[in-house]
C-alpha cells in the first residue's frame, strides 16, 4: 500500500497546472462550506451563550411534560424542588442551583402593552451568577421578601416610559386558567445592552410569584449554573440518573423553532454542497481520464511487469483520493482565513433582533466561529466524491491490454 501511495503521490504532481486548478476548485467548495458552518456556529454561540448569560442557567430542570408545552410556559410545579437542588449541588461542576417560577404574561402602562416572560427568582442566590442582577443601572435588585415590586430591563422601561418608583400593571396567570393581574412598583432597571431581550423579560421575587400564581412553596424550574459552558452534557447525564422523572434540558434544546430553522437551512446547504462537489467531481474525472490516455504506455509497462488490473485501478483511485485530500487541506486553510477574519469583525444582525424570540438573543453582532464543527463530515464527503469520480478512469486504465498498451503511440 505504501508503494502505491508513493506512486500515486508522484503521479499526482506530474501535471502541476491541471492539478492545481482542480485543487483550487475543491478548496473553494470546502471553504464555502466552512464559511457556512462558521456562520451557523457563530449564530448558535451568540444565541446560546447569551441565553445562558442573560436568561440564566446552563441547564434547567422541569417537571415532566414541560418540554412539549414549553412555548406556553405551563405552570407545572416540580414537587420536591429542594431534592433537585440538593442533587444538583452534589455535582462538582454546579456552582448554583436556583429555584424559579417561569411563565408568560403581559405588562402594560398607558403607553402600551408588551408580552413578557415573568420570572420569579430567589434574589440572594441569583446575584453571584446572574448578569441581569449584576447590571442594575437604576434602583436596586430584588430582595428576598420583596412584595409588590418588579425588576425590569431598560428596553422595557423606555418602551413603557416608566422610571424606578413608578407603577406598572403585570398580568400573568394562576394555575387554574384564571388570570391574575397586579399593579407593581418598578424597584430597579437592568441594562445588558440588548434592548429586545430587556423588553421581553421581567423579574419578581419567588415568594411574590408563588403568591401571584397560587403555587405556595413550589417552583416550576430549577436553573443550574455551571463553572463553564461546555460541561452541560456530562452534568445532564449524571443528573438524569439521580433525578428520574424530570425533564433536564440545556438551552440547546430550548428553542425548537431555532432548531427547525437551522435544520432546514443545514439540509439545503448539504444538498447544495453535494451538487457543487459533483461539478468538481466532473473536473477530477476529466483530469484522470486524460491522465489514463497520457500514460497508456506506462500502464502497459505496469501490466507487463505483472501488476494486476485492480492494482492499476488502485493507483488511479488513490490519485483521485489524494486530490480530494489536498483540496480539503487547501479549503480548510482558506476557510480558516475567511472565518478568523469575519470572527474578528463580526456581522451586523441588529436589524433582525425583534424577528423572533431567539434572534432577540443575538445582541446585534454575530461573530462566526472557525467553522470546524462539521469538518470531519465535510472532508469525508469531499474525499468520497473524489474517489467516486476516479472509478471510471480507473476502470478504463485497468481494462488496457498490456501488449496493446505498450505499442500505443
Amino acid at each position, binding site marked *: 500500500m505504501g508503494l502505491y501511495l508513493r506512486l500515486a503521490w508522484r503521479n499526482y504532481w506530474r501535471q502541476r497546472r491541471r492539478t492545481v486548478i482542480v485543487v483550487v476548485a475543491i478548496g*473553494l467548495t470546502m471553504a464555502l462550506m466552512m464559511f457556512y458552518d462558521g456562520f451557523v456556529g457563530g449564530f448558535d454561540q451568540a444565541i446560546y451563550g447569551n441565553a445562558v448569560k442573560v436568561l440564566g442557567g446552563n441547564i434547567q430542570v422541569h417537571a415532566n411534560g414541560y418540554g412539549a408545552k414549553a412555548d406556553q410556559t405551563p405552570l407545572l410545579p416540580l414537587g420536591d424542588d429542594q431534592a433537585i437542588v440538593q442533587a444538583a449541588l452534589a455535582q462538582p461542576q454546579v456552582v448554583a442551583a436556583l429555584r424559579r417560577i417561569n411563565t*408568560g404574561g403581559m405588562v402594560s402602562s398607558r403607553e402600551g402593552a408588551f408580552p413578557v416572560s415573568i420570572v420569579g427568582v430567589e434574589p440572594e442566590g441569583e446575584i453571584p451568577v446572574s448578569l441581569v442582577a449584576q447590571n442594575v443601572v437604576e434602583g436596586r435588585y430584588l430582595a428576598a421578601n420583596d412584595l409588590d415590586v418588579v425588576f425590569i430591563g431598560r428596553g422595557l422601561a423606555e418602551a413603557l416610559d416608566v422610571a424606578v418608583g413608578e407603577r406598572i400593571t403585570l*398580568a400573568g396567570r394562576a394555575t387554574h*386558567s384564571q388570570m391574575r393581574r397586579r399593579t407593581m412598583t418598578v424597584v430597579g432597571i437592568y441594562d445588558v445592552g440588548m434592548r429586545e431581550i430587556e423588553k421581553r423579560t421581567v423579574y419578581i421575587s419567588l415568594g411574590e410569584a408563588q403568591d401571584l400564581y397560587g403555587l405556595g412553596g413550589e417552583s416550576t424550574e430549577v436553573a443550574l449554573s455551571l463553572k463553564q459552558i461546555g460541561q452541560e452534557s456530562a452534568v445532564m447525564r449524571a443528573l438524569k440518573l439521580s433525578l428520574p422523572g424530570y425533564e433536564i434540558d440545556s438551552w440547546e434544546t430550548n428553542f425548537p423553532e431555532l432548531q427547525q430553522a437551522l435544520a432546514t437551512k443545514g439540509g439545503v446547504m448539504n444538498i447544495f454542497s453535494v451538487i*457543487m462537489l459533483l*461539478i468538481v467531481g466532473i473536473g477530477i*474525472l476529466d483530469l484522470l481520464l486524460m491522465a489514463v490516455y497520457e500514460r497508456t504506455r506506462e500502464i502497459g509497462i505496469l501490466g507487463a511487469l505483472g501488476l494486476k488490473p485492480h492494482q492499476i485501478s488502485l493507483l488511479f483511485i488513490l490519485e483521485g483520493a489524494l486530490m480530494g485530500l489536498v483540496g480539503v487541506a487547501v479549503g480548510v486553510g482558506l476557510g480558516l482565513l475567511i472565518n478568523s477574519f469575519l470572527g474578528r469583525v463580526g456581522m451586523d444582525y441588529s436589524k433582525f433582533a425583534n424577528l423572533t424570540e431567539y434572534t432577540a438573543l443575538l445582541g446585534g453582532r454575530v461573530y462566526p466561529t472557525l467553522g470546524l464543527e462539521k469538518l470531519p463530515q465535510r472532508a469525508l464527503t469531499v474525499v468520497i466524491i473524489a474517489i467516486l469520480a476516479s472509478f471510471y478512469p480507473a476502470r478504463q486504465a485497468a481494462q488496457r491490454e498490456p501488449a496493446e498498451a505498450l505499442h500505443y503511440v
Partner: protein
Amino acid sequence: MMQLYKMAWRNLGRNRRRSFLSALALGMGLALLLLMAAVVAGEMRDAMESSIRLQSGHLQVRAKSYDEGKTSLAWEDLIENPAAVAAQIATLPAVRVATPRLFANGIVAAGDESVGVRIIGIDPPSEANAPFREGLVNGEFLSADDRGGILMGQTLANKLSLKAGDTINLLVNTSNGDVDEQPFVIRGIYSTHTPGYDQSTVLMPLAKAQAITQAENHASTVFVLLRDREQTDAIVAALQTSSYQINTWVQMNELLVETEQLSNAYMWLLYLIVLAITATVIVNALIMAVFERTREIGILLAMGMRGSRIMAMFFAESSLLAVGGIAMGLVLGGLLVTYATKYGFYIGSYGMTGILIGERIYAYLTLSDTITLTITALVITLVAALYPAMLAARMEPVEALHGGKGA
C-alpha cells in the same frame, strides 16, 4: 469567422466525452444557481405578499402619535370615528378597500396554558378580511354584532389543543393602561399557511374590541388595499393631511426589503463562487486540449497563422462549450424551477413574527435573474478561457512542431 466556429466545433467533436462533461459541469452550476435565485425570489415575493395581505396592506392611515412598536390604546394615539375616515378613503377610485382595525396585545389562557397574542379588531364584512374568511378550516366566520366570539389561527389552536366552540379566557390591554379579562368562544379557526402569523393572532369584531379595550369609537389604523400597488404614491399625495400619518407598504416592510437586499448580496457572492468552480472545470478541459494539440498548433503557426487567430480559435471553442452548457443549464434549471414553483418546499415554522414566511416556499424565477445569470455564466467562462487560449497563442512554432516542452 464562420470558419473559426466550424473548426472549433470539429475540435470539440474530437473528444466528445470531455466536451460533454465540461458543458455538463457548467450546466449543473447554472441550474443550481437558477434554482437558488428562484427560491430566494419566491420566498421574498411570498413574504411581501403575505405581509401586504395580512399585516401591512398597501397603506395604513394612523394617528400622528401612534407608535407601532407599542400598541398604545390611548385615545390621543388612535383615529377617532374610523368608519367615517375609512368610508371617505374608500371613495377614491384607486382604493379597493379601506377598513378600520384596532390592535391590542393580550394573553390567551386555556386550561393551564397561556400564550401571548396580538388581538386585531376587524370589521367582519370587509373584503380586506378575505384571507381569514377563505382560510377558515373549522367553524364559521365572525359576524359584526358578535359580542363573545373570536377567530383563532390554526397554529395557535393546535398548540393549545383547541377547536371551534371551545371557550378561552382572553386578557387584553386597555386605553387607560390597565388590563381586562373576559371569556370568549372560538367561532372559527383560520389558516393563512403562515405559521408566524397564525400562532400569534386572534381576531374579533371591531365593536367588541373597542368595547373591551375601552377605545370606544376609535381604531389604531385604517387598513387600505389598492387596486394596483403602483398607485401608492398617487394615493399618498391625495390623502396627505396634517392630522394623520400615512404609511406605505414599502415603509412598513422595510425590514423585509433590507433582508432581501442583504440576501441578494450574499447570493451574488455565492453565484460568483459557484461559477468560478465550474469555470475551473472548463479551464482544465481547454488546457488539456491545448497540450494534446501542441503539434497541430505548431503546424498552424508554421503555416503562418497568427497567435491572435489561434487565441480566437480557442475562444470560439470555449464559447461553444459555454453555449452548450448554458443550454443544458437552462433546460435542467427550468425543470427544477418548474417543479419547485408548482410544489414548493415545506419548511415548517421558523417562529418568525416580524417577517411572514409561509410554511411552504414556492420558487419564482424572474426574467431578469435568468438573463443576468446566463450572461454572468457566459462571461466567466470566456474569462476563464483566456488562460488556455494564451498558452496556445504563445507557443513557439518550432518547439511546438516537435511536441513542445510537454504539458
